[in-house]
């Protein structure tokens, strides 16, 4: 075994974005020895890209807000497919988690009376997002990072990727990883694992995600035998940059619309008025005059009495609307819609509240957003589906395995509200850390990692070096991304999904033949071959789940089943491994109490 580094910890946290950091802090505070593994350098995880804010019913900006309204908004945003208990915990615990960040040094923007200021966002009835301009994620990750490095029982492994989870008698016993900088292997012996690996956006060509987002945690859990749920629900954020090509997909925060920005088509129409779903009709303005009154109130810091502009509908609705405008020939020159803040707010306000957006467009697209509209279109942004977990502890269906944040499924149902991901990271990151630490205390020391398993894995991982003249892994990844965008995108048909399944088989065969050059030291080509395996697993899971759900709901749209079907409103689609085959099943949603049902019906 001296070919490997070996490390023993109670809890291994995989991923160091918001969820992983918060889980590590929670587990360490319980006395567990924690390994925190991050694929990049510490503080660079995708949380850093979160812009608009963290949703928490602090009721600072509008006293009418409460956890009950937040719960209802979250459930309605998810088209009632959410795990109700997770939605309830999120709404109840988010305020305490946000305040805790201030105790650790975070500085959110303030109200005139000195409390945390909150902004409006799609699907939230009241201004609810605590924020720092448009760089809220950076504030969160830096605060958590600085807290983490103060805790002596957390060891951070930077630029390290976990390739497989190890089990012993059906329980988690460790993980097999490699260091990206040296290529050296690490065997972790551990009692519990918290997956906090984020999403799968790199399965798609146009996406807002970093290279790290290759579905690692989803695939690790699947391989280890855990259930995945809701994999058909991939969030396409309505406003990604569309031009120039080099920046296609990069996120334009929903905060632009929260600050009063409007969407227009090539005819100058505010087309969102035509796309208000029945479920939301009474909550949204039906004239521009009313929508503008709402903005005027918000800008002036008054309590808004008018109904909200339809630009603030949930992301699934806005993304589909833009796609339809483009399809019907009313798109912007580069195939998107116009997002205009320039005529709505002063240049000073725009630069103050949306500094990153100002800089991003100025430097990368030669657009001055204080003077010109932005061109925007849908971009793959977020994975609602993921590891099925227990709401209280975030335990997966494999003993010793936990998951939090984007890699966990259930909380967001069929569509996530903006701002709920950051509160998700804090609330369920903490719960997963506590759950894993408590579980680890029940497991005796000396978990076993079989030497022959480790040898076999090492050989498997190094195989691309042994093959000569194979294809480049980048070519296979690009082909997969093109294919997923074409056949498993916003609107999905039975035939397209079948085509995708066949294509995934072919791509898997191609992936098995790729070869890489150079040494094991910091070799991105080699790393891509290992990421490809995970991307193929999650792409297949998304496609199979999408085939199974023969209805349209939230982020999932089936061309031949355009309506929401109540028969699918009470089930999750569950993906799990049976030998080498991927199986799909429908299983009933957990039942909500009558008390919570009354909240959904409007009682708060």
């Amino acid at each position: 075994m001296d070919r490997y580094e070996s490390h023993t910890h109670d809890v291994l946290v995989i991923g160091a974005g918001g969820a992983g950091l918060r889980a590590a802090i929670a587990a360490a505070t319980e006395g567990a020895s924690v390994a925190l593994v991050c694929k990049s350098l510490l503080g660079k995880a995708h949380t850093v890209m979160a812009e608009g804010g963290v949703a928490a019913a602090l009721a600072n900006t509008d006293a009418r807000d409460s956890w009950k309204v937040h719960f209802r908004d979250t459930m309605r945003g998810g088209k009632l497919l959410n795990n109700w208990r997770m939605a309830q915990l999120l709404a109840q615990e988010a305020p305490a988690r946000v305040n805790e960040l201030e105790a650790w040094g975070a500085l959110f923007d303030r109200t005139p009376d000195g409390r945390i200021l909150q902004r409006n966002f799609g699907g939230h009835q009241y201004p609810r997002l605590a924020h720092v301009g448009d760089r809220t994620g950076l504030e969160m990750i830096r605060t958590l990072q600085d807290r983490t490095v103060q805790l002596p029982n957390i060891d951070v492994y930077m630029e390290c990727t976990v390739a497989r989870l190890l089990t012993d008698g059906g329980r988690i016993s460790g993980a097999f990883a490699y260091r990206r900088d040296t290529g050296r292997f690490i065997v972790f012996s551990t009692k519990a694992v918290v997956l906090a690996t984020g999403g799968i956006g790199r399965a798609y060509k146009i996406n807002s995600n970093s290279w790290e987002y290759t579905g690692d945690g989803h695939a690790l859990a699947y391989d280890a035998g855990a259930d995945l749920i809701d994999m058909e629900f991939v969030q396409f954020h309505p406003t990604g940059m569309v031009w120039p090509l080099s920046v296609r997909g990069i996120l334009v925060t929903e905060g632009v619309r929260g600050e009063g920005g409007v969407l227009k088509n090539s005819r100058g129409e505010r087309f969102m008025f035509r796309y208000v779903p029945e479920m939301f009709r009474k909550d949204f303005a039906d004239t521009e005059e009313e929508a503008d009154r709402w903005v005027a109130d918000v800008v002036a810091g008054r309590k808004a009495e008018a109904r909200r502009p339809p630009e603030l509908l949930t992301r699934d609705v806005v993304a589909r609307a833009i796609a339809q405008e483009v399809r019907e020939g009313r798109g912007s020159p580069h195939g998107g819609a116009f997002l205009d803040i320039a005529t709505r707010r002063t240049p000073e306000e725009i630069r103050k509240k949306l500094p990153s957006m100002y800089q991003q467009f100025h430097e990368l697209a030669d657009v001055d957003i204080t003077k010109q509209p932005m061109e925007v279109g849908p971009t793959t942004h977020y994975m609602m589906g993921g590891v099925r977990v227990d709401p209280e502890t975030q335990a997966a269906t494999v003993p010793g395995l936990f998951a939090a944040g984007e890699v966990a499924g259930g909380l967001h149902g069929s569509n996530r509200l903006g701002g709920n991901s950051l509160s998700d990271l804090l609330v369920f990151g903490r719960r997963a850390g506590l759950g894993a630490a408590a579980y680890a205390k029940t497991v005796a020391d000396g978990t076993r990692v079989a030497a022959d398993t480790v040898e076999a894995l090492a050989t498997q991982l190094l195989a691309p070096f042994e093959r000569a003249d194979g294809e480049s892994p980048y070519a296979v990844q690009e082909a997969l991304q093109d294919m997923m965008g074409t056949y498993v995108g916003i609107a999905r048909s039975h035939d397209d999904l079948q085509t995708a399944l066949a294509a995934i088989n072919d791509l898997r065969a191609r992936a098995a033949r790729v070869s890489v050059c150079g040494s094991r030291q910091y070799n991105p080509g080699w790393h891509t071959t290992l990421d490809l395996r995970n991307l193929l697993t999650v792409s297949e899971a998304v496609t199979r789940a999408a085939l199974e759900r023969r209805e349209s709901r939230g982020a999932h749209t089936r061309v031949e089943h355009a309506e929401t079907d109540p028969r699918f409103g009470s089930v999750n689609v569950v993906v799990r491994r049976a030998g080498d085959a991927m199986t799909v099943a429908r299983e009933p949603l957990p039942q909500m109490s009558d008390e919570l049902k009354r909240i959904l019906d409007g009682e708060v």
Partner: protein
Amino acid sequence: MEAVLRIFRGDQAEGRLEDFRVPLHEGMVVLDAIHYVQAHHASDLACRWNCKAGRCGSCSAEVNGKPKLMCMTRMDQFPAGEPITVAPMKAFPVIKDLVCDVSWNYEVNKRIPPFQPQPPEADGTWRMQQEDIERVQEFRKCIECFLCQDVCHVLRDHDHKARFAGPRFLVRMAALEMHPLDTVSRTAYLKEAAGIGYCNITKCCTEVCPESIHITDNAIIPLKERVVDDFYDPLRWLLRLFRRSG
């Protein structure tokens, strides 16, 4: 239209510049060109990146000798026909190609005396005015690209890493010192361990900051003033002497 990228290949022990031809398209940035080279010419070319939007501070390098984020550096700003040189940051040891060992920065960060807030209001939260936090919010924009560390001559030319924390961490300490809730004094730490006296305010760090943080004027100079007040003000010096003997 094509460009020639002249990229450093190698490690700390040895290396050379290698030329790669890359097709150009509208709006292209240097990081796009690096990705093209990885996909078509050298799959093992090492570079760091994450967000590709100037938000994470991973893809720092020296482009034609200037410290830059590769994701925010447009190709069309360079004269056509001339090779564009891309090299790793010079102030840190090279691991491979464009990737440096920046672990020293993380060690420095760990040692900084942490934030300790004053007690909250009765409801468990704090009140702060926006105008009182704005100067700290400027410092908290830092994305830890370490370009300021790279360009700082105390670190780059004199390699005083054992004695000087560098502009990044002076900014971090300024954020802590000026935080309205913080109760800790870091002036002794700034003077001794962080070696603030090594900075002779040439403002090189401010010039390269992709977040336009006024590192020298708003962070380092006020911190230097605090150190002077605490250690070189004769009245305070006497007071300290008196306290010690008491």
